[in-house]
């Protein structure tokens, strides 16, 4: 049962990067109507989001975050034993983007590197995967990276998704530490795989229709665009997440006075407040970054932490961070992090110029 305490692993630092281009939600007034857009903003909280250029990928954003974090922590590049990249926006169908990042960062060859395909729950899952790799004590330092350019896989004519998602990448530095422990729990309900899905473009449906068809007012989508059943996801989340938090906190004797920051996946501010209320979490401790960055998928937990602490605070902070969504997949972690090692969010337009199509 994936519930318990992960020992021997500490989070040393977190960095995040977003593209420089900001798109205001109100820019969609002409397309979806002002009233509709302001209702959307009122519910989701998204006032604006950062959007990547055509050439910039999730790995480019994670790369910049990783460089910043390695430099800040003064980690010797040869001391890094592993690289995990969590994304649903890989650079290529193959190879794994983690290998591309390994090369770009100049990591040593005796290093494990692989991708994990998860979205909203990806940050909490990555902590467990990295922690598991460290259990033998031979792997001491892992760069746990991730990112998504969700905006590239969404129809701009789908009002249910077009204004919600932002692009971003993150880097987390994890280190073997016998004095540290991270409580965790993880869940999956694969019967809900259709609730959030990009149906075409991979092996099940390699050739779908590129034509955008209408699915209700203001919702035009092709088979290559992300589909999200908002009502199903909302119902799932407000049922499962508060229950998970209540039992997790009881199991690990975590009281509401113990944690400094509640940093949930940034799905929808109305939903986050509802979850907090049900789980008896004070709204004062609720971290919100999606008003300025949107739903940033796998980065939404680290970006909320960096937004709260980056360049602002010092000292050890205790963070309660549940992730939930696409899969359906959910889980939570409770960990310590040094506020001064949660870096201010970087804005960058950099991309990997050698990453284009190979014509050998």
């Amino acid at each position, binding site marked *: 049962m994936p519930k318990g305490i992960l020992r021997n692993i500490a989070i040393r630092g977190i960095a995040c990067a977003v593209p420089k281009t900001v798109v205001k939600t109100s820019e969609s007034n002409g397309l979806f109507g002002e009233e509709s857009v302001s*209702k959307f903003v009122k519910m989701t909280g998204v006032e604006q989001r950062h959007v990547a250029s055509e050439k910039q990928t999730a790995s480019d954003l994670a790369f910049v975050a990783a460089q910043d974090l390695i430099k800040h922590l003064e980690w010797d590049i040869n001391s890094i034993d592993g690289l995990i990249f969590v994304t649903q926006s890989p650079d290529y169908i193959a190879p794994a983007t983690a290998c591309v990042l390994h090369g770009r960062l100049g990591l040593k060859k005796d290093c494990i590197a692989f991708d994990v395909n998860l979205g909203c729950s990806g940050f909490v899952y990555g902590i467990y995967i990295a922690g598991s790799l460290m259990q033998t004590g031979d792997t001491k330092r892992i760069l746990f990276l991730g990112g998504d350019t969700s905006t590239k896989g969404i129809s701009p004519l789908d009002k249910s998704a077009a204004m919600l998602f932002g692009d971003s990448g993150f880097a987390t530095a994890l280190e073997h530490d016998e004095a540290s422990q991270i409580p965790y729990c993880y869940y999956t309900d694969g019967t809900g795989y259709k609730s959030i899905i990009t149906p075409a473009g991979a092996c099940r449906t390699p050739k779908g229709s590129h034509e955008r068809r209408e699915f209700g007012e203001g919702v035009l989508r092709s088979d290559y665009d992300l589909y999200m059943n*908002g*009502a199903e996801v909302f*119902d799932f989340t407000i*049922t499962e997440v508060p229950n998970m938090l209540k039992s997790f906190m009881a199991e690990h004797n975590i009281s509401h006075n113990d944690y400094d920051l509640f940093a949930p996946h940034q799905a929808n501010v109305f*939903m986050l407040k*509802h979850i907090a209320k049900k789980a008896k979490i004070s709204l004062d401790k609720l971290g919100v970054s999606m008003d300025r960055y949107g739903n940033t998928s796998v980065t939404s937990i680290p970006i909320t932490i960096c937004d709260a602490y980056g360049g602002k605070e010092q000292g050890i902070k205790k963070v309660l961070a549940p992730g939930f969504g696409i899969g359906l997949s959910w889980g939570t972690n409770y960990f310590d992090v040094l506020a001064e090692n949660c870096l201010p969010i970087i804005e960058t337009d950099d991309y990997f110029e050698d990453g284009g199509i190979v014509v050998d």
Partner: protein
Amino acid sequence: MNVQTKLDLLEDMLELEQGSLEMTCKLESLESWDSLAAISLIALVDEHFEKRLTGAMIKEFKTVQDIIDFME
């Protein structure tokens, strides 16, 4: 909870004037009955009635009466 209180909750949720909603009112005729309203309704019945409402169940609702009947 009496029917009037339930109607008040719905009117508040749909940002309609008090007393403007009738039981026979068809949901599709309401301009503010959309995908965001569906999400608000899921939260509303969870909070006030501790009942779970799925997307599929919402699709079956045709009139205000159908929602009121669910609110128990």
